[in-house]
């Protein structure tokens, strides 16, 4: 049997797991692993400028491909800098394996240099974690980590690697396990047959159904089944922020995103539905608004692979534990077998009602001569990229506008931090996507607050030539904070200004990238066209937008789903 050191085992195990790309930052307690990486031709490592960005890159690499993202960092601050990234992945159920160095086992507990209890610090935001106390633990821990991260409801797994365990002088027999089985962990994939029957009969019997599809449908690769079911029964489909792309954004049956900044028709349809069929969505507070007023006449059917998501916020009348893909396929098969069909008169009447709500055209906005509106920027982005770009975003107004005005054609095309709402996610996320998809246009839609939270990664882009487009909707303020302050805090703009926004064009040039400033609407399309034509370069497009623009629709706090502000002056009847 081959004899390897602990450090070599780490690298070999990753190779045997099929890992091609890894994101990280070296330091004292992982020097042996970095030395082993140096000698490996199979794994490409990307050195970031801050560990948080390494995790976001691995995270978006995973979101855009479905593979597991992998991170390697040193002990102490290297590990703790990852926490925001890990929490971001955890909230959105993204499979990651984070390898963090640790002080030697014989120093653990002594407050040694760069010692942090990473297992303890990360515990609330990981799916699981392992600490390797001997070199022989390493291959097994890595195999289990990838298995746990990628199965069931995916999530991040941390592996703690003390320095003495990596020692290059001590060699042990190496064997990478072929399979893994854990007696305490067996995720349910297929749905209970009785529940499938009941679900089909409830669905075809519904007069006002809504298919409410979340990120779980993307993770489970269930888009095909969602489309088939929706088309077969002529169901209206709404997506959550995390679910955008699971159903084609330009499909006639797509009624838009739902929730806090969802469309009028999506929120109205939900509130007035008699059946809500949740597929891989978790009734987040940004969707439901006030749970006591949530969809008063609807029966709730809910597929989720994670039993804790079912009946957590909203009681499910018909719960189905399983993978969205497998369960929907079971339902489609049963529908085919039994020729189950809904009443087209009922559904047509429901569509008449929905189309009436649609006619309100809630995403219409007024343009003005003096300022560029953020909506115009996203519409222009859609036009220039023909709707084919992978779009990442940061967090705030620009994120909501991108979600509302760029109809995503396919899953894994829209990459954003939905659950955690992590500012600083967008740029490293775009880089992770570009590394995974070098031939596709990748754009980071960002704001002047968010972009400055991980702007140091412009340096990583330079080092590895990762040619992403950065589209900055620059309103010289923390737009979403300011919107709330204007609406609910008497207009007192407490610390929502950015008095010292830098010259982003010069900043980009300092990193040897191309910066383009856009001040008028006439400059917008040529600038974006040029940005995507310069395929080999990072292009930073800084667009000055109307600082007073708000995001609408917006649900009224403590209201039902259908209570919305539609503009600065218009509100639905309370």
């Amino acid at each position: 049997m081959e004899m390897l050191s602990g450090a070599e085992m780490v690298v070999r195990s990753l190779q045997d797991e099929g890992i091609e790309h890894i994101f990280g930052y070296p330091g004292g307690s992982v020097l042996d692993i970095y030395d082993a990486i140096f000698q490996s031709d199979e794994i490409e490592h990307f050195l970031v400028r801050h560990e948080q960005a390494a995790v976001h890159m691995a995270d978006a690499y995973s979101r855009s491909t479905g593979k597991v993202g992998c991170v390697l960092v040193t002990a102490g601050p290297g590990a703790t800098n990852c926490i925001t990234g890990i929490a971001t992945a955890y909230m959105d159920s993204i499979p990651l394996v984070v390898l963090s160095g640790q002080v030697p086992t014989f120093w653990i507990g002594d407050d040694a240099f760069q010692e942090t209890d990473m297992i303890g610090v990360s515990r609330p935001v990981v799916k699981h974690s392992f600490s390797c106390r001997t070199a022989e633990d390493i291959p097994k821990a890595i195999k289990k980590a990838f298995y746990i991260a990628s199965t069931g409801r995916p999530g991040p797994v941390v592996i703690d690697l003390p320095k003495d365990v990596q020692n290059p002088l001590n060699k042990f027999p190496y064997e990478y396990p072929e399979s893994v089985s854990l007696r305490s962990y067996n995720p349910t994939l297929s749905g209970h047959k009785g529940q499938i029957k009941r679900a089909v009969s409830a669905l075809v019997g519904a007069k006002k159904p809504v298919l409410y599809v979340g990120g779980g449908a993307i993770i489970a690769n269930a888009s095909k089944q969602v489309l088939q079911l929706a088309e077969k029964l002529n169901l209206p489909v709404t997506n959550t922020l995390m679910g955008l792309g699971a159903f084609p954004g330009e499909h006639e049956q797509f009624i838009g995103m739902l929730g806090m900044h969802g469309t009028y028709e999506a929120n109205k349809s939900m509130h007035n539905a008699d059946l809500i069929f949740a597929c891989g969505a978790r009734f987040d507070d940004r969707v439901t608004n006030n749970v006591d007023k949530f969809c008063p006449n609807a029966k709730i059917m809910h597929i989720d692979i994670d039993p804790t998501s079912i009946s957590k916020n909203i009681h499910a009348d018909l719960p189905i534990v399983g993978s969205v893909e497998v369960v929907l396929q079971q339902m489609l098969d049963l529908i085919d077998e039994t020729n189950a069909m809904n009443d087209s008169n009922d559904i047509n009447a429901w569509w008449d009602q929905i189309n009436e709500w649609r006619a309100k055209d809630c995403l219409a906005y007024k343009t003005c001569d003096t300022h560029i509106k953020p909506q115009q920027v996203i519409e222009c982005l859609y036009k220039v990229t023909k709707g084919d770009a992978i779009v990442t975003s940061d967090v705030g107004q620009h994120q909501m506008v991108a979600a509302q005005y760029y109809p995503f054609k396919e899953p894994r095309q829209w990459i954003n931090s939905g659950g955690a709402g992590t500012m600083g996610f967008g740029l490293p996320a775009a880089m992770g996507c570009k590394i995974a998809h070098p031939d596709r246009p990748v754009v980071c839609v960002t704001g002047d607050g968010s972009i400055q939270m991980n702007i140091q990664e412009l340096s990583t882009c330079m080092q590895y030539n990762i040619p992403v487009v950065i589209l900055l909707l620059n309103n010289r303020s923390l737009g979403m904070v300011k919107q709330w302050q204007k609406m609910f805090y008497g207009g007192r703009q407490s610390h929502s200004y950015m008095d010292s926004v830098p010259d982003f064009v010069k900043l980009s040039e300092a990193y040897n990238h191309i910066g383009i400033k856009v001040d008028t609407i006439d400059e917008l399309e040529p600038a974006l066209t040029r940005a995507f034509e310069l395929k080999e370069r990072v292009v930073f497009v800084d667009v000055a937008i109307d600082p007073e623009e708000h995001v609408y629709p917006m649900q009224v706090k403590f209201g039902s789903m259908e209570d919305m502000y539609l503009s600065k002056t218009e509100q639905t009847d309370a």
Partner: protein
Amino acid sequence: MRRIISVLIENESGSLARVVGLFAQRGYNIESLTVSPTNDNTLSRMTITTDVVDNATLEQMMKQLHKLVDVLRVSELTQTPHVERELLLLKVRTVGPEAREEVKRTSDIYRGQIVDITQNLYTIQLTGAGSKLDAFVATMDECSEIVEIVRSGVCGIARGDKSLRA
């Protein structure tokens, strides 16, 4: 409402921290917790007593426990016939033969055992349901001075055929 949850979990470093962390993180209340290895020492058995506002919270708590990768089985004891026991060790100060006699008599009535004696101190061991232990402590408080008290927390097991195994 008071509930007793039994958990069968991998006996590995960090397992207990994950359970305790879960309760803290999700705002669940732990009244008592006992844990020790089973006859198969790769497994630990935990008994957690908690106070929940409703069944939905209990259900969510049990699902969250089960979601922990280390956890094999979770069950709730109070809704079916079960046995629950707690161990109490109580150290009391007694002055004079009369008081000492009273302590001895009360312990006997509760079927407690005196496990240690000094000139002025009696240490009494008592097992039983929590309510019995409460009553005993209250009585002893009247006839002696309580110096020290330690309770093990609840251990529970279902009656009859029902069992929690890997």
